[in-house]
């Protein structure tokens, strides 16, 4: 309970900090929404020309893109340091979080908020709203889907960034993995063969951030729900295990300092 309280307090502080520069915040939110909208034009052009790819049409793309964008937005907004974790480890900046009596991983991840994430989150909902699949029931499924997709994405980021405990500077590998995850999650899953699909459920779990939650938002099946729940649970557990296992190897030149 006390962890939840501190979590809410950190998020509140992040929001207040973002609101300090209101114009910048709004321009980033609107800019990101426009950015996503312009990117999606490419898919509209593609499906206007080719209609559908192995049963996958533009409506499916709206939902897939919507789920991925909203999940990405949630992670950026609430767990913004997931994108910098490797850098924090390499620079010895974990010292600050280790010196406080709070769960290190949770506190580190939530200590930063990326304002443009709000634009991604809102755009995702808009994308779903115009997909042709929108209904009250579908919205409830969409909400659950983006939460589980966000858990998968945040866990994947933690796993990849935790490699910094062993490799030191893992920036290139992290960039490669994160780019692959985002790119693959916004492509129709119908274009991949079985080997590729296996990779997209395990090594780079982009299917659990895009196609599977999108299928669940479109139509309820126990199979997709089970895939999402098991996937999110397994990746979360793996992320926590790898981070704390790596933490045992953590070394720094003592960067503990009083921050008022």
């Amino acid at each position, binding site marked *: 309970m006390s962890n939840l309280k501190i979590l809410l307090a950190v998020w509140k502080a992040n929001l207040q900090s973002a609101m300090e*520069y209101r*114009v*910048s915040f709004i*321009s*980033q939110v*609107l*800019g*990101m929404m*426009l*950015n996503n909208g*312009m*990117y999606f*034009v*490419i898919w509209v*052009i*593609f499906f*206007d*020309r*080719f209609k559908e*790819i*192995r049963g996958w049409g533009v409506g499916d793309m709206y939902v897939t893109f919507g789920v991925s964008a909203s999940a990405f937005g949630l992670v950026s907004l609430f767990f913004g340091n997931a994108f910098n974790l490797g850098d924090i480890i390499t620079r010895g900046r974990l010292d600050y979080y280790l010196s406080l009596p709070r769960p290190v991983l949770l506190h580190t991840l939530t200590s930063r908020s990326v304002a*443009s994430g709000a634009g991604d989150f809102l755009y995702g909902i808009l994308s779903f709203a115009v997909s042709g699949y929108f209904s009250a029931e579908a919205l409830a499924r969409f909400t659950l889907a983006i939460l589980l997709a966000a858990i998968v994405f945040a866990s994947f980021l933690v796993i990849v960034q935790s490699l910094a405990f062993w490799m030191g500077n893992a*920036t*290139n*590998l992290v*960039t*490669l993995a994160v*780019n*692959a995850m985002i*790119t*693959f999650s916004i*492509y*129709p899953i*119908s*274009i*991949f063969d079985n080997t*590729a699909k296996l990779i997209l459920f395990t090594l780079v779990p982009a299917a659990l951030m895009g196609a599977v939650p999108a299928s669940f938002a479109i139509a309820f099946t126990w199979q997709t729900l089970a895939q999402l729940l098991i996937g999110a649970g397994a990746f979360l557990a793996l992320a926590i295990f790898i981070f704390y296992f790596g933490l045992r190897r953590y070394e720094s030149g003592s960067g503990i300092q009083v921050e008022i």
Partner: protein
Amino acid sequence: MKKYWFIFQTQLINSLAYPGELIGRALTILPFMWIFYQLWSVTFASTGQTEMNGLTLKMTMWYFVVTEVIEISRPRVGNTISETVRDGSIAYLLSKPYNFMLYHYATAMGGTIFHALFNILFGGGLIWWLVGAPPSLMGVAMVLPALLGAWALHFCIAALIGLLAFIVEDISAFLWIFQKAAFVFGGLLIPLDFYPGWMRTIANFLPFASLSYAPARLFISPSPQAFFAVIGQQILWLGILGLALTFFYHRAVRFLTINGG
């Protein structure tokens, strides 16, 4: 001009200082090329045609090698310039005996060349393995000046956006929008040949087609006429954007107030 050549050379050598880093960055192109191959091989197969709008699968994939090499290796000066404005280091740079913009151009291009070379190696290598050799050797020779033209255009637009830091605190939204406009109207993810006619017409009136579509199309369907058309168009846009950059740069510097230091 000699000093800019030296700046370019220095940056070029600097970029080789960490070959592991260079290779690591270039690996980024692989997932993109792989997913393009998946998408377009399925698309061609589902239409049952081996050629669409004058493009075969092999031509389409080599088209993407060029567009991705341009996009991934392009000079990213927007943030660099805006940062110098925001942190005030522009004051220090302006006192140096060189042109601020040419300095940034030389630096950016020095960092681009080897990055592009490794991207070509990895991206081109993967596509060669998947669909075979590039369609034409003549294309290889003709695309080189077009690549330099594309990066010069990228520089002008990114620098113009960077100068916006004199007016707004954060320029990232403008950079995102420029990137996506280049994606859509530059045919970065879908060749313009597959666009509806009206969109192709709009794209041809904008500088974005000269950034990626035109060099990539030249690479897969080279001819002397196409070469001169592409280079001519790039020179025209370089003239327009170069003038705009010079104008706005001088205007911006006039408003700059430097206190002490």
